[in-house]
């Protein structure tokens, strides 16, 4: 059988197809849930770390955020995943997929936080001053003036982070979740097809398609947001 015939076989055998799409499903679910968790967490952490409040609660929170970002960005994702699965959530019956979502969400939150923080700081201080000088309080100034401009600045970076996240989820195969990568591996290891090349290439095309869709979506959002500085 040549490459072409094997590809046809992969996409016409019900069992293979089912496995591939189950894997795709896991990859998509983990990515989306982790992305949402990461965005929410990242935004909260970013807001915390730019706060100028000198209250004791805020200072403790800021300390925690700093440690969180340092640890997450300073250690490999695979290790974080293993520690979550085999230590922190090593509870009998705790679904591994939830652990995986938490691990990826927490990981991505640290990067998103740094992006958002940089985005907010990149907005000219004059914007804030102009808002405050009109009598707006700091919250309204942040929400109406600074954050909308920061979002525009950080969309590309956040997009990159999400793309990295999707691809990085492939390591969940190491904790035996049948994601897209794992599915391809299982199919390839079977006797019938006797080839890794075809399922792996197909999985790669799937990843490519997801990333392409996401990139396309981000481009559209960027274009919309850039309405204010077209010349």
């Amino acid at each position: 059988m040549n490459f072409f015939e094997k590809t046809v076989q992969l996409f016409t055998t019900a069992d293979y197809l089912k496995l591939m799409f189950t894997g795709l499903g896991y990859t998509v679910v983990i990515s989306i849930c982790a992305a949402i968790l990461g965005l929410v967490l990242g935004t909260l952490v970013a807001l915390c770390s730019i706060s100028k409040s000198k209250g004791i609660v805020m200072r403790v929170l800021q300390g925690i955020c700093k440690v969180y970002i340092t640890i997450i960005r300073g250690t490999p994702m695979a290790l974080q995943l293993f520690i979550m699965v085999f230590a922190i959530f090593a509870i009998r019956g705790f679904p591994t997929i939830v652990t995986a979502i938490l691990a990826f969400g927490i990981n991505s939150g640290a990067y998103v936080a740094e992006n958002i923080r940089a985005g907010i700081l990149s907005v000219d201080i004059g914007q804030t001053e102009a808002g405050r000088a009109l009598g707006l309080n700091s919250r309204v100034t942040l929400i109406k003036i600074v954050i909308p401009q920061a979002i525009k600045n950080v969309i590309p970076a956040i997009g990159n982070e999400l793309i990295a996240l999707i691809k990085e989820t492939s390591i969940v195969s190491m904790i035996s979740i049948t994601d897209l990568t794992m599915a391809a591996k299982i199919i390839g290891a079977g006797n019938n097809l006797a080839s890794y090349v075809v399922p792996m290439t197909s999985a790669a095309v799937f990843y490519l398609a997801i990333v392409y869709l996401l990139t396309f979506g981000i481009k559209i959002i960027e274009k919309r947001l850039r309405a204010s500085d077209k010349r």
Partner: protein
Amino acid sequence: MISVKNIHKSFGELSVLRGVSCNIEAGEKVVILGPSGSGKSTFLRCLNLLEEPNQGEIWVEDKLITNADPYEHDEIIELSQTYADLYAKYVLENDGTAGDEVKKAVISRIKEQRLLKKREGSLFKKALSQYQAQHGIDINLARQDMGMVFQHFNLFNNMTVLKNLTLAPVQLGLKTPEEAEQNAMRLLQRIGLADKRDEYPSKLSGGQKQRVAIARALAMNPKVMLFDEPTSALDPEMVGEVLDLIRELADEGMTMVIVTHEMGFAREVGTRILFMDEGNIAEEGTPAEVFDNPKNPRTIQFFKAVL
């Protein structure tokens, strides 16, 4: 209208304002001149508390807006535990003195010896904000009456020209969206930019941006306008249109404080010149006095260089 008492401001080691005092009356057009780095912008920004003075007081229409030293506030001192302790002690030791006398004596002792402890600091902050709330002192409220125009315009980049003008009045509940829009359109017509209502700031020329920025400040119906080098970032051919607008406002009686390097304009529009040097007001007087007959050697030197 604005009364500044002995304000000091430093950034770290750098002492920028070293005890500046002045009164600005309604209708005055005060022009601040001085060499670069003399503290002109810092002074202006202190007036609406974009910079917080380290020391001294700023009163706007009989309301103290600076977060003054708690030691200076009798009302706040009275709220402290230290005060209560001293008061009790004083009464025990000076049997028969009248309440008011005790109070005065204790407060002056606290001020002299700075007896309030650091741990009472946060208590003071609370007391101070309570006091300010009770007396209707709110910096955000005070700022509504003070329009500010910046060197670099600082128009809100994410909003259209119209939205730049309506945001604050609507957000602050001063106007309904319809009223705010009407008022904004009236102002835009006045500055000749009504047709730009739906443009974003990035599409305007420098002069147009600054005129919109002035209109944005006017949309709040301020009692005083603060200008920080409003024409310094403009191409020469656009300086005129902005100065004309400021001149018009001046003629209508708006109270103004203007930092500028446009000497001709300063002389023509100003009713009083403050010459700042190294964080102090080195000389002040009418334009005629200061321009034609400067007394301070620093002022003389400055005019020699710029005129």
